[in-house]
């Protein structure tokens, strides 16, 4: 009986080993992608993979976490896409990205949003300080760029100290979208326009001059800048069809 189990186990091992080894010819590329672009990058990547003998893996986290992970060796990726300059600089400092390889193909906008059924209205930006709103969810300014931008906008308009006690932070943008969708009628969230889901409703579009320009930065990581397959995908991500897709998803595709 035991021996029979042993045999089955061995057989399974062999089969799984064969399954792993068989697609040895297809190149594999891992994209480390800021959460806010994750959905769109995936759509674009699938399209690319269909016409190329390539397999793409996606790692969607906040830009800071990805940068730290790659620098610390916990994450292996060929291309890094950050939602702000800060974390790309962090990568350059770490010698993982060459400055001249960094491009900024698209940008984004911040919106104040509420759950789809919320009757909340936001006439002016300063309404955020009113009593009708008792909770504002933003990204963690430390690691999530959309949080950093939100904080900067609030500071620049001089209401940060007033609204601070209403603030709750989340680690990344998908989490924020989900959390906001389940919130009550007195809660709003600040997130990228591209990350609004069908359970959310935009209330107010934030003036881009209140915070540094929201740009995405993309660069091949380490030695993969020399890899033809990586370069191929990297270039494709900056091509017109991709811009169209990004534009359709709400990104700002005008160059900086």
């Amino acid at each position, binding site marked *: 009986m035991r021996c029979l189990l042993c045999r089955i186990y061995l057989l399974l091992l062999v089969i799984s080993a064969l399954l792993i080894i068989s697609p040895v010819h297809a190149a594999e590329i891992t994209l480390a992608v800021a959460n806010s672009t994750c959905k769109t990058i995936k759509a674009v990547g699938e399209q690319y993979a269909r016409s190329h003998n390539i397999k793409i893996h996606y790692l969607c986290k906040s830009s800071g976490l990805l940068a730290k992970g790659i620098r610390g060796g916990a994450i292996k990726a060929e291309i890094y896409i950050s939602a702000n300059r800060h974390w790309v600089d962090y990568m350059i400092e770490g010698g993982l990205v060459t400055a001249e390889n960094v491009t900024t193909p698209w940008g984004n906008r911040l919106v104040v949003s509420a759950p789809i059924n919320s009757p909340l209205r936001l006439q002016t930006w300063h309404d955020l300080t009113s009593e009708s709103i008792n909770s504002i969810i*933003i990204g963690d300014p430390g690691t999530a760029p959309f949080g950093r931008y939100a904080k900067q906008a609030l500071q620049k308009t001089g209401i940060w100290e007033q609204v601070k*006690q209403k603030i709750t932070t989340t680690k990344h943008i998908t989490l924020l979208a989900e959390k906001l969708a389940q919130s009550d009628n007195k809660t709003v969230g600040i997130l990228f326009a591209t990350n609004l889901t069908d359970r959310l409703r935009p209330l107010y579009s934030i003036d881009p001059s209140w915070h540094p320009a929201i740009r995405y930065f993309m660069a091949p990581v380490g030695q993969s800048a020399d890899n033809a397959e990586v370069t191929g995908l990297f270039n494709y991500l900056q091509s017109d069809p991709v811009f169209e897709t990004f534009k359709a998803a709400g990104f700002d595709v005008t160059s900086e």
Partner: protein
Amino acid sequence: MIGRMKNCSLYRQLIVPMFSIGLISLLGTVYFSHMLKESVAALDTVYVEGDIRLRNLEEIEKQITAYRALSLRHLTTENFSTMEQINHELEATRIIIQDTLPKPKETITQPPSGQPDISHDLDAILQTYFSGISVAIKLSSDFEKEAAFAMLTRIESEHIPRIKEITSQLIRNAFGDISDSRRALMSVATDNLYSTTAIGISGGGLLLFIAFIVIRNVTDRLSKLLIWSQRISQGDYAAILTQDSNDEVGQLTYAMMEMAQSIADANNRLEMSKRSAESIAETLKIYANAFENSGEAMLITDRENKIININAAFTRQTGYELSEVAGKNPRMLSGGDTSDDTYCEMWNNLKRENFWQGELWDRKKSGEIYPKWAAISAIRDQQGEVLFYIASFTDISDRKAAEARIEHLAHYDMLTGLLNRFSLESRMEQAVLAAKRENQQLAVLFVDLDRFKYINDSMGHQVGDQLLIEVANRLKSCLRESDIVARIGGDEFVIVLTALKNTNQVATLAEQILTHLSEPYSLNENIFESSPSIGISIYPNDGNNIDQLLKNSDIAMYHAKDQGRKNFQFFTSSLQVASEERIDLEHQLRNALELDQFELYYQVQVNTQSRYIHGMEALIRWHHPTRGFIRPDRFIPIAEESNVINDLGAWVIDRACQQVAEWRQISDKPLQISVNLSARQLQSNKLIETVQSAIHKHQITEGELELEITETAAMADPELAIRQLNRLSELGVSLAIDDFGTGYSSLAYLKKLPINTLKLDQTFVGDIENDKNDAEICMATIALAHNLGLKVVAEGVETIEQRDFLTKYDCDYLQGYLFSKPLPSKEATDLIKTCSTNQMVCL
């Protein structure tokens, strides 16, 4: 100085120095105790302070840990209001830590040299730590978690190790302080103890010295006085003594000299009177002794008849001491049962003749009234006036009681209080005479208790005795006053009903006695079942003298027992015949073994599955020379009662073993022979020996011999049965319970017995086809036996239906007329031979 002190009193000589030395010692001790108390109080303060410091330090350590945990929690919190809350907690913790911080040391002991006070360091470093953390917290509150975390890490790594180091150093210091104080306390206490001890020893020594000087002085003079007084006491009144001082000893010397003079004078006077007194006292002593030690109780009263003396025997008899009766009138002893006439006669006699004797009923101190024989004398002076009365008494209650008991014993049974055999006979004689005279009938009921012997043997005589008393009481309650009831031995009672009008009355009464005596007996917290068997004979029909009547009622009683006990039977002439026959059989049974009148028959037992012969049951037959064949159930009970059973049983076992040994030669399969054991045999202490010798003699192997006992036999004395059966089992004898299902069927008990086989009684087997209950009992018994690991033999299988039923329910072996009737040895041997070659015959 000592010389001068001689004129002071001894009290002064001793007390003054003792008091002053004691005072000095006391003052010294008080002083040192005070010093000790001061030191202890001072040290106690240090001790308590050290303890508080230690606890504070431990608290600080705990709170710092809490503070660190809180600050970390603040950093991981994403919600502002939660952060505010944590911030408050942090602030509170910080205040606790700062309040608990140790103050700079203020001790009476010296601080350990070379060690700077580091509690200031702790204070300073904590301040830096707190301000650093508050910056980090501020960042965290501004949602700059990254920066806050980096800062927190830096501050922690900078300060925490140092804080920990300082707190543990402080804890070590506090421990050090405490042990220092303890050492200081010890040394102060030790010093103090030494000083106090020194004062005590020197004071005590001085006291002893002074006491020694004074006492030596006094002793010296006292011994002189002693020698002098010894000479005086020896009668040397001329001895000389000088008074040398005025202290107590000097005064004593003077007083003694005066006393010596008085004694010398008195001695002369005494010498003269002594001689005359001695002769009087001698005489008085003899009288006093005679009075005091007399075996008879004696009493002396004065002329007013007031008690002035009693002797020891009086106290023993009445219980009164002299102090209780002195000065009282002897009337107080009167029990009130003596007639006034007796007292009148007594006084008259005393007046006339100075003497009276007679029986008086008096009362003891205990209240008990008792008879006594009194002899009283009046003693008069020469003028004829009464001086005193002297009386002596003998307690005659024992004699009276003995007379009464002898009377009772002669006529009554000691245990039950019923008539005994002797008085039964005399009362019956009168009753028979009366019946003859008045032409009436009499009934004699002979009652014997069933199971009495069992109860008596198993529960002890005490319980047996209680049972008899209870039976006697129940009997009395059933009878009229005029009826005679007696216990004539063991468990046998005789009742005589007099003046009968018709005999129906007797049956009714017998029935009543039967019911009454059969009710359960509650003795010694146990409930027992017993019942009577009653035999009845009637005068004049069944005999015209008491011997005849008793004998016939006895025979009728035996008949009642034979009828299954717990019933009553009238005597009939046929019973007499049966009784005589029984005696006859018993006599012939004793000779039958020697005359070789017994024979064993064998009935085959068939294996249900294979249909081979499994074994044979040996059954005994008695060929009586004149009566022909006698059934075992007729003679076995007689054999049991007359003890022939043991010899007969031994013969059967030996014969059966011999037979199975013979069959072993002709059969190709091993056969088993079953032999029935009677209850009496099972209880016999010769059983094991008998079986052992038979096995040895015929080389019987294990399983060849099976002994069958009835459930009832095993239950008669379960402990003994278990012992015997275990020993039989050890001998390799297979054991079977016969007639299973008819007796107690105690399963728990059955498990204790080392049995191999159950025999299913033929009464159940016989009715399998007709009675559903019997069929179920058979099934259940087979299942039960198999459950206990036993084989089952069904007895009395007579029809094919029975055989098929028993086969269906897995009964192991079958026995009965369907296969073969019991056969004599030769035919049984033939059957075995045939079956060995052709098993079909056995089916």
